[in-house]
């Protein structure tokens, strides 16, 4: 079980990531990333 745990975690993580991509979350991140984050630079 101890040897399988990282593989199980990896598989679940990749499944969660894929679900997020299918829900269109990539575009949400892109939308945030291409806008100057005023909070990040301290003038928000």
């Amino acid at each position, binding site marked *: 079980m101890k040897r399988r745990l990282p593989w199980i975690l990896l598989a679940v993580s*990749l499944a969660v990531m894929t679900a997020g991509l299918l829900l269109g979350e990539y575009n949400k991140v892109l939308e945030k990333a291409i806008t100057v984050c005023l909070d*990040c630079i301290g003038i928000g």
Partner: protein
Amino acid sequence: MGAKLKSQSPRKPRDRRPWYQAVFALGLNAWIPSWFKGEIFQGGIKGVCVPALNCYSCPSAMGACPIGAMQTFFGGLRFNLSVAEKKFGLYVAGLLAAVGSAVGRMPCGWICPFGFIQELFHKIPTPKIRIPRFMTFFRYAVLATMVVALPLLIVDEFGYGQTWFCKWICPAGTLEAGIPLILIKADLRPLIGFMYYWKLGLLVLFVGWFVLSRRPFCRTVCPLGAFWGLFNKVSLFRMAVDDEKCTLCDKCHKDCPVDIKIYESANSPDCVRCLKCVSSCKFGAISYEFLGKREVAPDLRVKNRAESSG
């Protein structure tokens, strides 16, 4: 004969990690034209979260900061639920967990530009200060409150939460984005106020701490390191210490950039897996294992080959 013996003698391997760190720091911030245009890179690949704390408002940043992205999802969750929009942050959480499951905190030691900056400042020769162990638990509080709880719980009239960590703490944002953007975008300068000076002051304090202590931000504040550290004990990449070979000489501890005693806990959540201890151990007591393959220090491999052939 003499030349043959010389070629077989064990040589001290050069530490190539700073070069990897430099290449990753430049690679993650490679869009140099943005600096001259006075804007940030806006290419379609910027939705890819990078495995490091690297501000996406750095003019040349090629990818998104996972901690900033995560806070955005938590901050927007209540609004999204109220309008039945299914955006839960699964992409970012899954990506971070996948990296953690594979290699644990290894990106902190090899990829993160902010970790690299801390190590560079620490090379300045001054008296050094050890960080008390209790302070290393503070990063979990930062992760739980600034990244998860506050963006989720404190929302405006529209249901949006703030990116609390970016806004109040993140010195990487100030260094990589705050200072450069103010320098290259004149229209932002009139907006400078208390928050800008707060973050600038915090950055100055952190830089002073970088000089005095080993990677203090990574060890006491970084929420990304806190998250990946949770995977160190269960990741595919594993560190191992052979108790029979270890002489407790403490050389690994003295060389460790995060000041840990790996012989006490091989897969400590504080370890950034830089593998410095593997090469500094003269006795071959420290090794790492990935996908069933175990490795010891390169100089010991050379020594073992020389011994077996002679």
